[in-house]
């Protein structure tokens, strides 16, 4: 209706959406400023940036996959295990050829993701239940394989441990992700499914198929991330990638990603989120010498950022 009150609400909504787009960004800036002061500007010293980045790569790439899953309203707790297992497979194959290794890792990741997707879509089991099961499933394999010692990668892999190289790969992945998200119908479809699955179905998108694919793709992406992970680590133990899923969750939420997914999912959520997380990871130890304190502050900051940035409109029923 065109009565003033409605118009007013519309206005409010518009400005609100606009602000929400930025608020997590402000959060990021705020945290950077606060910690540059607390660390006497150490964290923003140029030579520290490369160090900072080298922790971003894996998280950033893996987050892209989970971002897609969360957009359709799902969750994935098997990411860490997928990373571990894919890394192992990469290590094995890398002894023949690194390129083949990357391909194998991506395929393996895709397979594991497809496994999740299959159970989620075919049997209609909540994604977080499925992925908690598969988290154990994959982690078990991972530990079993490494029983008699870490799985080493081919030694030339370590040669690739160059900032520019990792930066390049991450950049490419980001660019690809951005293009797919913004310049294909995928972004539109996924947001629609997240916002209202039935309506999306009646508008011609295929929720089941897309959900399955999303899980598969995110697996593949994590598979690719495992390549960079191995570049940095060199050999894989049974614990490789533990808690990655939680880090991703925290990072994305910090980036302003609505946990219920839907139309408010924005690509920058990934970047802002992971950067915020890594800034915290890097600077907290500088400020607080004791790990316990570091974590306490991390927790408090996390809650505050979420409390300030969370968007209640989109959640009628808060689960």
């Amino acid at each position, binding site marked *: 209706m065109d009565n003033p009150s409605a118009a007013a609400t519309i206005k409010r909504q518009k400005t609100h959406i606009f602000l929400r787009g930025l608020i997590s960004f402000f959060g990021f800036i705020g945290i950077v400023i606060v910690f540059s002061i607390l660390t006497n500007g150490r964290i923003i010293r140029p030579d520290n940036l490369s160090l900072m980045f080298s922790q971003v790569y894996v998280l950033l790439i893996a987050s892209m996959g989970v971002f897609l899953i969360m957009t359709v*309203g*799902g*969750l994935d707790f098997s990411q860490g295990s997928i990373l571990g297992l894919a890394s192992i497979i990469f290590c094995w194959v890398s002894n023949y050829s690194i390129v083949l290794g990357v391909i194998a890792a991506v395929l393996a990741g895709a397979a594991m993701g497809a496994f999740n997707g299959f*159970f*989620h879509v075919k*049997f*209609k*089991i*909540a*994604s*977080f*239940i*499925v992925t*908690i*099961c*598969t*988290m*154990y*499933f*994959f*982690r*078990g*394999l991972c*530990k*079993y394989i*490494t*029983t008699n010692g870490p799985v080493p990668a081919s030694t030339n892999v370590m040669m690739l441990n160059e900032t520019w190289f990792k930066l390049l790969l991450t950049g490419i992945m980001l660019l690809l992700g951005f293009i797919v998200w913004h310049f294909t119908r995928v972004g539109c479809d996924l947001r629609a499914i997240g916002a209202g*699955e*039935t309506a999306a179905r009646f508008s011609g998108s295929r929720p089941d198929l897309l959900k399955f694919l999303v899980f598969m793709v995110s697996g593949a992406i994590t598979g690719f991330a495992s390549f960079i992970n191995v570049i940095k680590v060199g050999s894989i133990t*049974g614990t490789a990638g533990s*808690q990655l899923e*939680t880090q991703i*969750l*925290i990072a994305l*939420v910090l980036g302003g990603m609505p*946990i*219920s*997914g839907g139309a408010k999912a924005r690509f920058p959520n990934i970047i802002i989120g992971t950067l915020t997380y890594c800034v915290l990871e890097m600077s907290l130890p500088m400020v607080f010498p004791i*790990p*316990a*304190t*570091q*974590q*306490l502050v*991390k*927790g*408090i900051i*996390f*809650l505050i950022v*979420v*409390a300030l940035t*969370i968007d*209640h409109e989109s*959640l009628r*029923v*808060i*689960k």
Partner: protein
Amino acid sequence: MHRINIVSESFLKFKTSKYFGFLVLVVMTLFFWGFFRLLSPSNFGTSRLVISYFQTSIQYAVGGCGLYFIVVMGLFDFSVGANIVLSSLVGVLLSRQFGYWGLIFGCLLCGTLIGAFNGILYSRLRIPSMIVTVGLMLILESVANYVVTLDKSGFPGKLSNSNILAFGHAPWNYLAAGIAFLLMVFLLRFTKTGTYCNAIGSDELVAKNMGVNVERYKFIGFVLLHFFVGIMALLTVSYGRGMLAVTGMSSMDRNFKPLMGTFFGVAFKKYGCPVTAIVLGEFIIIMIFNGLVALNVPTTINDFVTGAVLLTIVSLTNRGLKGSVVK
């Protein structure tokens, strides 16, 4: 023809009764028992061993009961593991002065208080439970590390004094767990809480319209969850004779063992025997673990098998309907 009808009729009647669910559970338990028993008759599943498996499993079952309240409402809580650690350490700390009373009330009280805290934060901040509890998990974990430093006994966080270990073995651990299970049954059957939690779970808005105070019962859900977690902490710390304060989210692993039991419980909800399902579910999982060791399979494969079994059971029981929207 007619007789067949009667038979199928009565079978249907039976199929919907709670005894059916109970039967299925027992059969499943027997199946896994028999499976490993056959493979390694010498060193698996004798009565003595079964008892010891059961002893191990009850602590997780208690936690599973607690999680049931939250999970059935469609919420989740990641701070369970961290709370186990913190409550245990508080219990140990108090036990230095007040012996058993300190231990018991330390665990239970601390647990419950944290539950209330979670509940308040959840309903006040109106943040999805999954997120808010991740934040709390980080905080509780680190607080636990401070609590340890308060313990000047020289055995920080350890129940070194051998005359305070009663809850680590029969009969006291059975007693504590038994009380927890009975309490659970009581809550589900003989209070509004159980009913309302289920109602909220199946349709929050309808429940609201029927006059259920949703916010209030979500809060109660959190408190109950962490009260049970307190009991679990008591059992766990006595079982392991000490607790280790951790950092870096490693307490997360503690969330999942109880959760498995909860999955069983939710799966058998429609047969009206969730508690039995939780207890036997955890028992099955521990049995698998022991069975693998008995077969001299490295325990590293254990997670793999557990995951597979869980997935099978969940996909057999928790399926959604065609066209239903599942996130």
